[in-house]
């Protein structure tokens, strides 16, 4: 080959490297934007969860006492007198159930007068950012309102978890909803976990590569993509309506057959079980698939049966993956609200669920309802409840990650 015929190379390295840098920056920026979305989302919620609240009273305490006096320096008979005069007879009877008012401590009586007569109410709320940036304006504004005090309020507080729903946002909590969510998830997992893992074992260890198992596999992948609201409609048609006698507990005497209605925890749990089943199956299959074949052969090679091989070797070695998948499924179920709305969660319910045939509400439903109340303060409350839900989800996810890392073997 002569020199004339040698190919020519032009090393356009400068421009190639430039485009390399540009692309890298673009990709970096898009990652950054993704992270910013998350941060803005969280900040938006936090912004609503804390901030100044102007609290007024149904009956201002000053109106209850004579001029120049405050509630705190009234004596016991005076306070008892106010209570006797102002609260309804039923409540009075309730209060005096054990001991007459006169034997209460002064502090208790003041608290009672505040809670039962003065009744603190939210007048206005400000977001965290507003509270920081417009502090003086807010103070001034509230200063002009009669009988109103300004407090810096955290909507996330122990009461939020321990109290039940209430029409007063200052004392409303998510207890019923939280318990409802936990019950529903317990049922969903107790149903979906064995079924899902069973299906995964069947598909990976028993079913060959035949037509039926192919159909099942495709079908499961499809089910994983079915919108949650469709499961809600299915649950409504099957569990709530067709199986009302079962899901209402009428067959066990929990409700009368005539008025049986299936809007119960068990219906919700079963519906969510259907929803998360494909997720559990897919994750469990992956986990089981990742167990090396040599291990199975070793087991078969020494005369183990199929099930002995699965139970003693395949499952223990895939359990981290299976559990991770299950936990992700739990967090999915925990955050679902659309199917529960369709099934018919209760709007106002303050009773803790007593059994699987109880009526229920769930945490995301509660959040949904609070955001749709007219009073702005319920939006703050909803933000607080969102933080509770997120904390729960984050701890579940963290548990998944810890599990995954701790038991990772292959």
């Amino acid at each position: 080959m002569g020199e004339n015929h040698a190919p020519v190379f032009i090393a356009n390295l400068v421009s190639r490297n430039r485009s390399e840098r540009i692309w890298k920056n673009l990709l970096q920026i898009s990652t950054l934007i993704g992270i910013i979305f998350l941060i803005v989302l969280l900040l938006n919620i936090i912004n609503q969860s804390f901030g100044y609240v102007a609290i007024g009273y149904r009956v201002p305490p000053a109106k209850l006492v004579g001029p120049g006096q405050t509630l705190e320096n009234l004596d016991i008979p005076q306070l008892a007198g106010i209570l006797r005069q102002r609260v309804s007879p039923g409540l009075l009877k309730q209060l005096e159930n054990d001991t007459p008012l006169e034997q209460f401590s002064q502090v208790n009586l003041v608290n009672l007068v505040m809670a039962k007569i003065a009744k603190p109410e939210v007048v206005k709320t400000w977001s965290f950012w507003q509270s920081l940036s417009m502090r003086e304006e807010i103070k001034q504004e509230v200063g002009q309102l009669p009988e109103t005090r300004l407090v810096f309020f955290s909507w996330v507080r122990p009461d939020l978890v321990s109290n039940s729903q209430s029409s007063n946002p200052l004392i409303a909590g998510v207890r019923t909803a939280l318990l409802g969510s936990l019950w529903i998830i317990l049922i969903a997992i107790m149903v979906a976990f064995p079924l899902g893992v069973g299906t995964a074992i069947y598909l990976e260890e028993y079913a060959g590569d035949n037509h039926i198992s192919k159909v099942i596999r495709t079908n499961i992948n499809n089910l994983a993509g079915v919108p949650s609201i469709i499961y809600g409609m299915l649950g409504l048609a099957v569990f709530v309506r067709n199986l009302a006698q079962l899901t209402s507990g009428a067959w066990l005497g929990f409700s009368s057959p005539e008025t049986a209605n299936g809007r119960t925890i068990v219906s919700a749990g079963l519906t969510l079980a259907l929803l998360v089943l494909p997720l559990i199956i897919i994750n469990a299959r992956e986990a089981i698939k990742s167990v090396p074949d040599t291990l199975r052969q070793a087991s078969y090679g020494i005369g183990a049966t199929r099930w002995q091989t699965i139970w003693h070797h395949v499952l223990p070695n895939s359990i981290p993956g299976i559990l991770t998948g299950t936990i992700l499924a739990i967090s999915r179920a925990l955050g679902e609200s659309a199917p529960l709305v369709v099934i018919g969660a209760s709007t106002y319910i303050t009773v803790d669920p007593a059994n699987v045939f109880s009526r229920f509400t769930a945490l995301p439903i509660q959040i949904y309802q609070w955001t749709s109340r007219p009073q702005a303060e319920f939006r703050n409350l909803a933000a607080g409840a969102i933080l509770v839900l997120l904390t729960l989800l984050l701890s579940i996810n963290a548990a998944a990650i810890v599990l995954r890392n701790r038991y990772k073997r292959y």
Partner: protein
Amino acid sequence: MIPSQTKLIDEKVTSQLLKKRNRLGERFIESTLVFCGFISIFITLGIVFELGKEALPFFSSTDFKLIKFLTGTTWQPQIKLFGVLPLVMATLTTTVIALLIAIPFGIGIAIYLSEYASVKLRSTIKPTLEILAGIPTVVYGYFALSFVTPFLRVLFGKDVVEIYNTASAGIVMGILILPLIASMSEDALAAVPRSLREAAYGLGATKIETTYRVVIPAAISGLAAAIIVGISRAIGETMIVALAAGAGPKFTFNPFQGAETMTGHIVRVSGGDLSYDSIDYNSLFGISLLLFFMTLSLNMLSQWVVRKLSEVK
């Protein structure tokens, strides 16, 4: 020495030696597992059957005309107008907007994580994104209403952007499916063998050239699957649109106006708990069935794409 080891296991007559044992437990377990395997089939049949059964009175009613159902532009069951287009249109609008956000960012993030980011950075960002994917959609809906909509209204003017609009819902839906697409795409890219990349580097290719010429074509089936799954998720998403997109069926192409998606309509109307025997109630199942088949065909498409493209590879 080994004490009388030969008697440890009773020697049987040779013909008995390998006799099949009656492993009842084993067979019981197997049949249980087979049953489990078939449950998913029952669920699908159940969905089709139940939705179909409840939708049947709607499809067979005299007020229902298939042509009008598919081409009518007014959905108002109370006055017997059953044109599903406004609902479908709103669904498509929100989905398209969501994809415009989610695909570039999602795949961009995936490429960055799999090709550029350090192991440490990737192991921080990926779980973070997965957590983002796990946030309940109610929260996203709240975010759309309380942050994105006001933001859009400042940006484009209050007269242009209605308080309920499909744009805001679509954007937030994009943020919702972004981590899903990013995570699935990253998996697909990471699965491309190192040797392929090294071969490209060995020829003097830069990183981005390697990525575009070698890695992405090799992972294309995974990327396509991620996008299709994202689409089907967006179509089926409910709470965001229920909270932010609007609450009245409206046939419009303007993303700054309020409109109601299929899912939004179902959840709104069923939240009001309809009478079981009304045509409204049955029409909901009709919409559900349509929605089911839409997502079903997308999922089938995604699986087909994965198979086809991986064959080409």
